[in-house]
């Protein structure tokens, strides 16, 4: 399915939140997922992460530590991730950061060079291709974050009147 970048990122962010991931990590997951798909990453690690939100939180923590290390030293930061699915997402997460990054992978070791003072130079694609399976999975999880309507919410909680008087 052809989707805009913004659509996919917003849906993925909500899906992560629906899976139980805290707000900031959900936002970062949305950015990671779009980068992952744009770079041709497999969908299986995304499904796995969304079914085990603690994996997403752990990835976010790993990235936090890489960024912190990069802010202290200009040398590339070495991190080891034996789980292939997690490693794939870690690479996408780092690559999708809004700063300039260079990633080198050797076995289960990821070497990340981050320039926190320079913006990312990675191009975004015109469209993202999402399988119907992933699209449905994201939609189902995202729906968990929506609040069911009530009469009060429809009449009192939103903007604009229900009837036109113009």
């Amino acid at each position, binding site marked *: 399915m*052809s*989707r*805009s*970048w*913004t*659509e996919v990122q917003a849906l993925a962010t909500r899906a992560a939140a629906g899976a139980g991931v*805290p*707000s*900031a*990590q959900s936002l970062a997951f949305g950015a990671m997922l779009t980068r992952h798909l744009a770079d041709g990453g497999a969908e299986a690690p995304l499904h796995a992460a969304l079914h085990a939100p603690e994996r997403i*939180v752990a990835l*976010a*923590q790993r990235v*936090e*530590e890489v*960024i*912190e290390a990069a*802010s202290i030293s200009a040398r590339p930061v070495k991190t080891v991730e034996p789980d292939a699915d997690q490693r794939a997402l870690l690479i996408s997460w780092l690559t999708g*950061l*809004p*700063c300039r990054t260079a990633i080198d992978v050797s076995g289960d070791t990821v070497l990340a060079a*981050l320039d*926190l*003072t320079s*913006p*990312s130079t990675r191009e*975004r694609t*015109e*469209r993202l291709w999402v399988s119907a399976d992933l699209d449905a999975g994201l939609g189902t999880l995202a*729906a*968990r*974050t*929506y*609040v*069911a*309507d*009530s009469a*009060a*919410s*429809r009449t009192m*909680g*939103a*903007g*604009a*009147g*229900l*009837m*036109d008087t*113009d």
Partner: protein
Amino acid sequence: MKDTMTPAPPLRPPHEVMRLGRMGVMMPTRLSFLRVLTRRLCAEQARVDRPHWNICADGYGTAVHSLRLGGRDYALISVSQPLDDASRSDRVIATAWDAAFVLFDGMPGRADIDRVAAQAPQQEAGRFGPRDLVLSRANKSMRLWSEIVAALRAGHQPSRQRIGEIGYIMRTTAVYGNGKFGIADRHLIAGRPELSGAFAAEMLAVYLIRQFSLDLVQHVGQGTLDRSLARHIGVGNATGLGMAPFLVTHPVLLNNWMVARETALARVRAVPDISSDTRARARLLADRVAGHLSEWHVPSTTDEAALRALEAEWRAFRHHLVDLPDDDPYEDIWSRAQNGSTALQELVVAYLLELNGDIVDDLAERMVDPFGPRPQPFAGTDALREAMARDWSWALDIDFDDQEACRRFWYVSADKLEPRLGDRFAEDGAELETPLDNARRVASAFHALPETDQPVSAFLRAYPQHKYGVDRVATCAAHPYSEIRDNLIATTCRPIDMLRCKLSFFGATKFDPKSDLWTRITLAQGAPLGDELSTERDDWWLPVMSP
């Protein structure tokens, strides 16, 4: 002019500017996005053409308005259809509208028009592609529409007074950009100089919708509006809560908008003298402001009273503008404004900028954020605490055990996916709260900080739920105007203030609040018409109907 400029004064501090009480009285300026766009249209001597017009006598069918900008063609595809009066609603939950629009990248062919005609009326339920830049819809303002049609059919012009009172014949209820429902992402067009400005594509769509509405009413009325009347007809807009979260979810963009505006003010205050031409213009503009305020009326008694108070305050204040001192004239105006209300001060900001386009217009280029917040790690939790104490003391002072400090919660409705506000203590769903409670989250993180310094990553390992608060603190440390310094979940929070701020950046006028949650506005009132862009002098700030 003197040989040297007075050093620019410091910008007004964020704790003064980033308050809802001030943001809620902001006025459009020459840095507002619609104004920036029309300046570009004029600079390129653009001309609006109408290559397709398949509209029946009753006003239904399809139309295309196009123009060439930056060496590229852009076209508004309009779809007008019958609508029962009972279906005409401002709400996002509406499912039918008088007209639907797509701003198209290039010149559409027959197949493109047919596709848009099938999809655009469905709005959120439709699907769109990367050549569709903006999606919108609008309803007629039946009170003015009917009067204009009747007048034109009778062979005379409609009432100037009524046009002045209402100001538009079509009112958009949503203008979607940046990838919504499959339309083009902003990154696809942000590199084009003509659309690189904030909301430039959306403003172009609004400008062309106004042209469509003027063409449509004259087509149905079978007559021609006087040019002065047509020019005073803008585009209405009804804006609700959907717009409010944007200011919170785009902190760097908000910072850059505010910094541009505050930098412009500082530059103007530093101008050491004033030419005789500008003196004369200052008096003319002061009269125009008075005229605009006198023509701006709203049904809400509270807001009408505030407008009349501002009008009276301006009439008293403009005496200062008649005989300005030779030295530091703008600083003199500004310092005198400090004795006035917040609304007067924000009006004076816009007035000062209007007089000094030559030294502020370039700032419009800075009102974008192509990259988003970059990681800004703190050296440790002590440094984080220090930043919180410096930038967030207003939040740390709030007692969130007080129910009135946290009664409201923002959420997204399952029905129409629209942002809404609920009562945390009376309604279900607070556990699904949208993270706009920044003050509470930062305060919560602050109270969880360890007594002894440690890496922030170690703190977040123990408390991953506080990463959101930590990120906001980091962004605010790097971008001081990125954060609204008020509690957005307090009972006293008025979302309308956030709407006013954002809409003023769009260039909205005639704010007509209907509650604390939504407002009607007018865009492009007084703007040059589609065939006037080559001769326009960019002088339509706060237009006045009366001659």
